[in-house]
């Protein structure tokens, strides 16, 4: 199981702040694809993923017990 936190506009797109998924050993890219296919409103353009409070690369692996945060880029000021 992994925990996924949807932050800022990602939260708006999927309609919830977090959820637990019964998956493990998938890449960050696969995780984003899974979210995209489960929530049609989710647009992964520019989204970044942090695993256990560290920004991750697309081919990094998400393991059981990991906490993944989906973070959109922020440019306003």
């Amino acid at each position, binding site marked *: 199981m992994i925990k996924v*936190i949807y*932050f*800022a*506009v990602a*939260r708006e797109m999927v309609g919830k*702040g977090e959820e637990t998924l019964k998956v493990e050993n998938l890449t960050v890219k696969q995780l984003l694809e899974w979210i995209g296919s489960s929530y049609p409103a989710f647009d992964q*353009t*520019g989204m*970044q993923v*942090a695993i256990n*409070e*560290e*920004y*991750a*690369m697309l081919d*990094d692996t998400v393991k059981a017990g990991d906490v993944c*945060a989906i*973070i*959109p*880029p*922020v*440019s*306003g*000021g």
Partner: protein
Amino acid sequence: MKERYSRQILFKPIGEKGQERLASSHVVIIGCGALGTTTSEMLVRAGVGKLTIADRDYVDMSNLQRQQLFTEQDALEGTPKVIAAKRHLEKIREDVNIETVLDHVDGPLLEQLVIDADLIIDATDNFETRLLINDVAWKHGIPWIYGACVQSTGVVFPFVPGKTACFRCLLPVLPSVSQTCDTAGIIAPAAQMVASYQCAEALKWLTGNEEALRTKLLHFDIWNNSFVEAGISRIKNPACPTCSHQPTYPTLTKQEGANYAVLCGRDTVQVIPDSERKMTIFDGEIVARRLGLTYRLTDFFIEFHIDDYRCILFQNGRMLIHGLKEISEGRKLYHQLFG
């Protein structure tokens, strides 16, 4: 002096030494909107010796909800933001040294502004200028404090050349579309929060408390009561054109010709003429008269309306065309007006 800063001096990590360091510090703030006005006010009150504030825009009614230095009078007169900010900041503290730059910040200009700077504060509203700040910061070895906000969320991080990965590592490809304050809205507490976090990082750095700096990006959402922190060591790119051992600083290469840009979700196209082309307010006045357009002259710009567009031409030749979304339309109108 001591009385004025007594409460800050009582705060142990700052003390008298830290206060003296603040008095001899120079901070460059890029952008004078919500983040720029709040950080500049806080740093002026904290006793920072010199501030340089750069911004290309003027005060508008829609700014007043969150840009706390500005007044209705500023918006009615369309005072350039840096001019209005300086006026108010000097009322708050007489002995502060404030340099204002009413211009679009590009590479050569920013390199000149940071010559004796201790720190750069990011108060911009777009990724392009942040990449530019990032390149200049690394080239000159000056830390910069990233801050951004939209809706009820914000993000903060102090980038320190030689210590952390850089902004380009975090964002190697610019998102083609991102939410901005002008398209997705913003509440003031989110902006003030980012500015406060930025100032805390600034005070740490300027008073010699480097070890207290944040080591992870902070993302917060003040409406949904959540925050996420994330470190950037893992994503440091060993071949990064900014922070690797062989940097090329891509944003600092000079562009030729006129420069057109669409401003952050505002239906505005900015035109900066080629450096060889000297345009002034008076060229704008000549054209407005020739076309029989009504116009308004201020100390800083000429404003005129043509068709459904509102044009503002600044003294240095830079022009904003409001009511346009496409660069091509901006280019066409500019050529129609000035050939």
